[in-house]
């Protein structure tokens, strides 16, 4: 019974999502990026770390489709390998925000009282912090490097998830069926798992997708401010940030990593929109 109910819901969701051409396109681009990341060693024409100082900053050619970088490395191969880093940055930093914020929001919303007050005040404090500066200071404290960037960007989105989850829990909690379950003496964990979590999933899914987009942009901004991924890793943000010095002489150094970031961020944004429309019919125009 229940199984077919979920399947039915998924069907409805898929029919709505499919109608949004932008979202479908975004999903396809993300899928391609994931495949590229997995198959990078098989697709990339060159070793992304192999330097050739005599061919520094060559413009695109039939040999190097996207040209070579400051160390004479094949830029296409670096962008292909870079998709792994970009997806990792996005996923891990959102996971940090989601797990941290989701947990806090769940507790705050469900148990309420002093605990809720404390948690939400701490979230207010984190929200009041100017975003990029918090991330920048955190990376300076933890030391540069991809993992620390992910932590800094992730912490930044904790309060957003906490607020969203708490709000959803509060509205669900008032529903009759929860009150009913409570009256019947269901345990808290059971209520949480059976009734509240399923209702949190849709909005959290939407926010996560949109935060994936923001995470990539934030990581790139940190690279620009001098505290990002460590070379020689082929991180798009770092490539773009280093390439900006050559914007007048070798624009291909910043153009392609920039386009790569923009395309992936755009896809996450479009999929996020599509998810929201499909999951929440009230917002559907």
């Amino acid at each position, binding site marked *: 019974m229940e199984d077919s109910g979920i399947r039915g819901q998924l069907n409805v969701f898929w029919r709505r999502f499919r109608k949004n051409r932008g979202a479908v396109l975004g999903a396809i681009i993300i899928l391609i990026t994931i495949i590229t990341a997995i198959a990078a060693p098989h697709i990339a024409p060159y070793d992304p*770390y192999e*330097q050739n*100082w*005599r061919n*520094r900053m060559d413009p695109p050619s039939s040999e190097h489709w996207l040209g070579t970088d*400051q*160390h004479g490395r094949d830029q296409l191969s670096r962008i292909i390998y870079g998709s792994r880093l970009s997806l990792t940055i996005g996923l891990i930093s959102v996971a940090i925000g989601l797990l941290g914020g989701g947990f806090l929001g769940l507790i705050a919303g469900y148990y309420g009282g002093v605990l809720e007050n404390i948690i939400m005040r701490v979230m207010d404090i984190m929200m009041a912090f100017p975003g990029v500066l918090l991330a920048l200071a955190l990376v*300076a404290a933890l*030391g*540069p490097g991809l993992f620390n960037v992910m932590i800094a960007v992730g912490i930044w989105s904790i309060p957003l998830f906490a607020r969203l989850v708490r709000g959803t829990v509060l509205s669900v909690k008032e529903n009759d069926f929860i009150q009913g379950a409570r009256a019947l003496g269901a345990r808290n964990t059971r209520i949480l798992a059976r009734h509240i979590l399923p209702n949190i999933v849709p909005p959290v899914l939407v926010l996560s997708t949109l935060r994936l987009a923001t995470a990539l942009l934030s990581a790139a901004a940190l690279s620009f401010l*001098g*505290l990002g991924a*460590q*070379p*020689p890793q082929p991180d798009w943000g770092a490539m773009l940030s*280093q390439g*900006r*010095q*050559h*914007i*007048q*002489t070798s624009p291909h150094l910043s153009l392609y990593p920039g386009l790569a970031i923009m395309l992936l961020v755009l896809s996450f944004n479009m999929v996020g929109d599509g998810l929201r429309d499909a999951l929440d019919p009230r917002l559907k125009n």
Partner: protein
Amino acid sequence: MGKKGLLIGCLLAGLLIFAGFNAAQAQTPEDTLVVALRADIQDLDPAYLEDAPTSSVGFQIYDHLIRRDFDGSFAPGLAEDWEICEDARAYTFYLRQGVEFHDGTPFNAEAVYFNFERLKDPETGSHAGQLMRDNIKSMEIIDDYTIVINLYEPNAAFIDDVLIQNATFIASPRAIEEYGEDYTHNPVGTGAFVFKSWTPDTEVVLERNLDYWDQAPRIEQVKFRPIPEAGTQMTELRIGTIDLVTTVPTEYIEILDEDEDIVLISEPDFNTRNLVFNFATEVFQDVRVRQALHHALDLEELIDAFLEGVAEPAIGPLTNESLYHNPDVKLYDYDPDRALELLAEAGWTKGNDGLLRNEDGETLSFTLTTPQGRYTMDSELNEAIHYQFNQLGIDVNLEIVEFATLLDKLDERDFDLAYIGLMQRTGEPAAHLDLMYHSTGWANWGDYKNPEVDSILEKGLRTAVFEEREEIYHKVQDMIMADAPSIPIMNEFYLIAHRANIQDYTFTPSRTHDYIRLYKED
């Protein structure tokens, strides 16, 4: 007005605005020189003046007792003449007469005494305090224009070590006492330009001092604008909204060369860049490993590829531009085979995976630490060096840190191999070699110890006769190179670009810029 009307209205308004703007950007005025700085200035009080941007402003406002001339030798500054007594234990300075600070305070021996005593005072907390206390035993005012400085130890390099530092700019005693902690917004010196205003992160404005003792500057005003992004500086220079850039990114050399409105100057400088070995790192305690890493690096090719025309490979530990430089110092040529041989002797042989391993199967691994954006192409160069070490089968980890973190790591000895530059204003060998290679040197971060090197360096400091000193320092360069406590990478050049209408621009090879003679052509 319908939607279409609204749209058309918007377009019209937009066009009008653009038309109003579509004049070329205002060029810099003819009577003003606009100079780009990499960061805002910090503190114009000489006692706390340390960083490069502030120092380039300080040089216009203040004078030293002695200045460095265009050929690198000493020239009279506020002291017209000076005498060094035989054993270099006392210096007598004969001061220029009739010089006034910008606030009208007369310059005399009292003023020199005041400035130096203030630096020595621990209460002042100057970064040069210890330097002054270590060197200066006492000062005697003979008359208004004669002062004798007595040293604790003979120091033939006293002028370089102490008198040409930022801290020893001579400031007006009256202004320092009058303004107290606000002095930095009201700095008063004797220099060619008078401080006018400082708008944080926007501009510092100086006006010419018509009574300057040397000669009155031709340009009326100098404006310094802090612009952190190198690319933005270049854009401004090329469209003519700034006149002079003193730190040109190498990426722009080609473009500036082709630009008829720009003159690009590159000249050798005293600055050296080194990779310093930490002797606490076990693998580096074997001299053969250190020598092998020398052989593993193709410096010629590296500099040629990344810094063509703006740096030259270092020849030994002392800056190539020093009068005491030993051109015949024994170097380690690029020779990967020889490197592998040396490493094999030291017990490191290639395993099946291409990595060098010792008998216990451990890989030869260490961390290469470099700052980013501090020195020309620092992180790019080290990415290339990292690659070259890796190619040899060494397991190197590249670590790019902020400059503040690097200094911390050096002090804590928390590094294996670190890339660091020494900004040198002069080619004085004691100032450079003592710091980096004497066992008590402040900049001997790797804790390199060779008693023979120590004693010969100390001898050099006590010797005032040029020929004797030259022999001493030539020898010590050979000794240091044989021990290989660091890999001297390169001597960096100046790289300056200015608008073509600027005439008679002069500078000394110590990053000090002289704006007295220059003028703008119509």
